[in-house]
């Protein structure tokens, strides 16, 4: 058995979208190195409830790094200190006994806080609704190889499709830009023949929607790539820009 660790937590509390937020602090003495970051928060909430206090709200679903629900900003880094890991997969063995950890929600005007660490990411849904789909009738699933697709393209499309929509890119971007998310969705569909037909319409509509939702401009900081739990490259943003220019001149 590993020894229990003491962790000093400081986390964001906010009653609702328009309420004034503040930090609350609590020290946990029974943190185990095998716990995930979210399990550590479960322990926090159990203790808070035993004290008759309100638990801290935080988002999660799968806890295995695939759903994109979790999106905490931990000591100023989206999903915490490790590269290519969602915070549900971040283990407490990355911390030492006595560490201080500050937990904040992703902060962006386009992601209003619902409560505590939970934010409303429906702005992403509306970007998808603007054009992140294929509307041609493709019938039921076909035999996988009936449409020949170059391996290079299918690999890239897959890489971009791994975006789990967690919003860490927005959280970490100094401008709160949604370019990596939007670029990944555009690049993923644009690499496949099924997505080709609506390629121009898609890029224009989705790029407009980013702005409409109040996300900032991209300044090429590439911080989004650094925090992306699935490691999506800012090359996705290059794909988006190229598609946009093609759309203008088509």
């Amino acid at each position, binding site marked *: 058995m590993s020894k229990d660790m003491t962790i000093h937590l400081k986390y964001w509390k906010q009653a609702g979208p328009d309420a004034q937020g503040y930090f609350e602090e609590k020290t946990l003495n029974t943190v185990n190195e095998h716990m995930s970051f979210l399990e550590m928060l479960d322990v926090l909430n159990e203790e808070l409830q035993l004290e008759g206090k309100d638990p801290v709200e935080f988002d999660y679903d799968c806890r295995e790094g695939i759903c994109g629900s979790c999106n905490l900003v931990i000591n*100023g880094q989206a999903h915490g200190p490790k590269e290519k890991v969602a915070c549900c997969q971040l283990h407490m063995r990355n911390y030492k006994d006595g560490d201080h950890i*500050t937990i904040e929600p992703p902060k962006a005007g386009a992601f209003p806080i619902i409560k505590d660490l939970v934010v409303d990411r429906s702005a992403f849904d509306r970007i998808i609704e603007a054009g992140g789909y294929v509307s041609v009738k493709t019938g039921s699933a076909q035999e996988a190889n009936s449409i020949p697709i170059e391996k290079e393209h299918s690999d890239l499309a897959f890489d971009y499709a791994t975006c789990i929509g967690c919003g860490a890119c927005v959280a970490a971007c100094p401008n709160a830009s949604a370019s990596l998310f939007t670029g990944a969705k555009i690049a993923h569909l644009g690499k496949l023949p099924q997505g080709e037909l609506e390629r121009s319409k898609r890029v224009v509509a989705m790029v407009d929607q980013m702005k409409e939702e109040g996300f900032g*401009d991209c300044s090429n900081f590439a911080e989004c790539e650094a925090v992306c739990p699935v490691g999506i490259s*800012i090359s996705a943003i290059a794909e988006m820009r190229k598609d946009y220019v093609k759309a203008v001149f088509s």
Partner: protein
Amino acid sequence: MPSIKQALSSQVGRKIMTGITGIGLMFFLIGHLAGNLSIFGTADAFNIYTKTLMDLGPLLYVIEAGLAFFFLYHTVLGVSIWLGRRKARPEGYNTYKSKGGPSHQNLASRSMIISGSIIFIFLVLHIIHFKFGADYTTMIDGEQARDLRRLVLEEFQKTWVVIGYVFVLLLAVLHLAHGFWSAFTSLGMKHGETSKKIQVTAYAFSIILMLGFIFIPLYIYFTGGEGSLISY
């Protein structure tokens, strides 16, 4: 598809135009340095160079207007992108830290607005300083011309002028160390091996270019305008 106006005001269009205007300005700087270095040529070289430019007449105005347009467009976009941050994130983080790795967040990229704004103020002063500076005259090929060489040699013997120029030129190293790479990225460069080479080139380019500019005031200052590179 989208109208040019819609495209230019989209987030993609704005970034591409920041890149294009930035690259345009970098080409201008290369030309500007090449011209300036003629101060180390024959005694008349610099004044012949400036006279040739001024003799362009109306064409010079067109070039100047184009340059001013690029400069202002770049500035407006840069400032507007920066102002947009407040709107996109009204409330900031208590703690914020870059994750490093593939991130290009560094002193240069984070201070683009500061280096840019100081360059802007500098440029206004720089034009007042030389273009509208003391109107000395000399004779070139039997024609009267401005003796800008004399003005330059005099001005760069003033301590505060030299300190000011060197300071701004060092900030320009920062602006271009990120800007050079960023402009390629804005114009569609992928984040792979080429990108790494471009980043190294960006550092080399900005340091070499600015050392070229910095050399002129420093040389004149420390040789009192009488160094062996200056012919009379």
